[in-house]
């Protein structure tokens, strides 16, 4: 077997050295009748060529985003990732290294995480960020738990513009931990009255902007009302590129900002692995979940980096830890950081403007074709109303080679949104793509 260096002779020699007769003597504590019952249902070893053939056939059955006019978003976005990003993250020293517990020989990962934390803090307009979470949705749930610890309350209010999967992740953990959650009804037009939900028993309010329907939301009135009641505002985003031109949640006084970082540096990959961004105020740092890289000096006085404030974490605090998170999304954070460094603020601003301009162009063309765009404001994604069942229309268009967007009913079945489609439009979409979508939708209505 090509991945196993030991030869039969090596194995015999080693067993002799250990002083046992055969390999199963080393499995002596396993109940005899359960040992080596075999795996008759599974095939035997295969060459690289054979494995490649099998997996390539599976892959070929899927429609890759780059192969069609592609407008699917709602929490994950198709962007162009520079070739150097994927090259760099595949360097052995990044790819095949463990969590940096031995700082003397993991300064590469640690310095990268320190830079990543700074980038995320600046992007979100916050003071500190951690070294990443699994993704935006799990980060969102962790933010709610953190708010409960900080406020010593346990009631969260979720905006109706929050991604339904995110809301469901929060409700799941809240149910398990016996915390309260109020979820507002789906808020397609960003008209909900969140302020009315906040009182002195509220721990936190969770608001997404751009929201799942694409609307931008002014968070300032919400943070003001939260703070007047001793509650915290958790701001969520799923499209990190938006922060290049949309005001940061930090500037609107959010207390915790969580988001999905996939858009920058990371491929779609059917939903994961992604990278959760998590930022907060300096004063809350000891209640923050996840790893943190910090600056220090070595025995010779040279600057270096270590994982720090680890007494918050599970391996020390055990049942009193702030979170059970251990492995996070190191390599995806690296991809994010490299892409962000390649963009720089000049590039990020331009990228965000191109996304927005493309989306405006598409919205105008759809409106011109008589298709209703519901949003007053948006970044690179908005919601349209179609005549008929949105899911069937999206399916029909897929058959015609156009991936038109996400029918709202897929995320919110039975919510009376069956004629709505969330349409995303990024820098990858061309005028031809947009023309194809508009004409297909027009034909289908």
């Amino acid at each position, binding site marked *: 077997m090509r991945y196993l260096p030991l030869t039969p002779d090596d194995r015999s020699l080693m067993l002799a050295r250990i002083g046992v007769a055969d390999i199963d003597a080393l499995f002596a504590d396993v109940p005899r009748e359960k040992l080596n019952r075999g795996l008759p249902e599974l095939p035997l070893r295969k060459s690289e060529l054979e494995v490649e053939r099998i997996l390539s056939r599976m892959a070929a059955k899927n429609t890759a985003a780059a192969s069609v006019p592609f407008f699917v978003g709602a929490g994950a976005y198709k962007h162009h990732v520079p070739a150097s990003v994927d090259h760099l993250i595949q360097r052995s020293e990044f790819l095949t290294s463990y969590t940096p517990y031995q700082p003397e020989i993991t300064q590469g990962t640690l310095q990268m995480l320190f830079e990543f934390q700074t980038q995320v803090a600046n992007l979100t307009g916050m003071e500190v960020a951690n070294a990443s979470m699994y993704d935006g949705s799990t980060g969102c749930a962790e933010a709610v738990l953190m708010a409960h610890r900080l406020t010593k309350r346990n009631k969260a209010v979720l905006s109706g513009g929050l991604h339904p999967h995110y809301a469901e992740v929060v409700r799941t953990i809240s149910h398990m931990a016996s915390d309260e959650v109020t979820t507002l009804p789906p808020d397609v037009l960003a008209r909900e009255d969140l302020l009315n939900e906040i009182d002195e028993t509220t721990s936190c309010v969770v608001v997404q902007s751009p929201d799942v329907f694409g609307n931008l939301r002014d968070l300032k009135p919400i943070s003001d009302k939260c703070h007047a009641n001793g509650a915290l505002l958790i701001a969520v985003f799923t499209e990190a590129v938006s922060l290049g031109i949309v005001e940061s949640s930090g500037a609107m006084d959010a207390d915790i900002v969580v988001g999905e970082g996939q858009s920058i540096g990371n491929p779609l990959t059917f939903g994961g692995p992604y990278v959760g961004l998590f930022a907060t105020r300096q004063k809350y740092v*000891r209640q923050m979940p996840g790893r943190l890289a910090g600056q220090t000096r070595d025995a010779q006085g040279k600057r270096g980096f270590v994982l720090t404030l*680890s*007494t918050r974490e599970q391996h*020390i*605090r055990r049942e*009193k830890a702030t979170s059970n998170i251990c492995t996070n999304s190191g390599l995806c954070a690296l991809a994010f950081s490299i892409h962000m460094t390649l963009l720089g603020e000049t590039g990020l601003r331009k990228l965000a403007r191109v996304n927005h301009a493309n989306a405006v162009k598409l919205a105008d063309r759809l409106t011109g074709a008589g298709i209703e765009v519901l949003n007053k404001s948006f970044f690179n994604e908005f919601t349209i109303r179609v005549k008929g069942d949105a899911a069937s229309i999206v399916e029909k268009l897929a058959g015609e080679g156009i991936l038109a967007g996400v029918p709202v009913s897929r995320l919110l079945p039975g919510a009376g949104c069956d004629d709505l489609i969330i349409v995303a439009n990024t820098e990858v979409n061309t005028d031809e793509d947009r023309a194809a979508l508009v004409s297909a939708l027009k034909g289908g209505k």
Partner: protein
Amino acid sequence: MSSSYFTKDHEYIRVEGDTGIVGISDYAQEQLGDVVFVELPAKGAKIGKGDQAAVVESVKAASEVYAPVAGEVLDVNGALEGEPGKINQDPAGAGWFFKLKITDVKQLDGLMDEKAYAEYLKTLG
């Protein structure tokens, strides 16, 4: 005239009249290593005997500090927030955690005096 008492969890309480000054013993600070953070109780808080009153953290460990006796928190050592190293340098002096107005001095009877504590430490190896 003051006298000190100790718990099995290595808190000390130095009694001056009906006030007790609480901290962790020299043995405890040595076991913890460099202290990097403390969380102190709120002034005015009423704490029961054996309740968690503070948290002390080193780089690699965190442990709770329990109230040796019941009482009301009169004062806390705010200087520790900026200089937690005082706990390592001078645990019995500048490294104190909080002052308690002792509710019931009889509760001190259940604690070890300095001699008994020294004997207790020997049993820990």
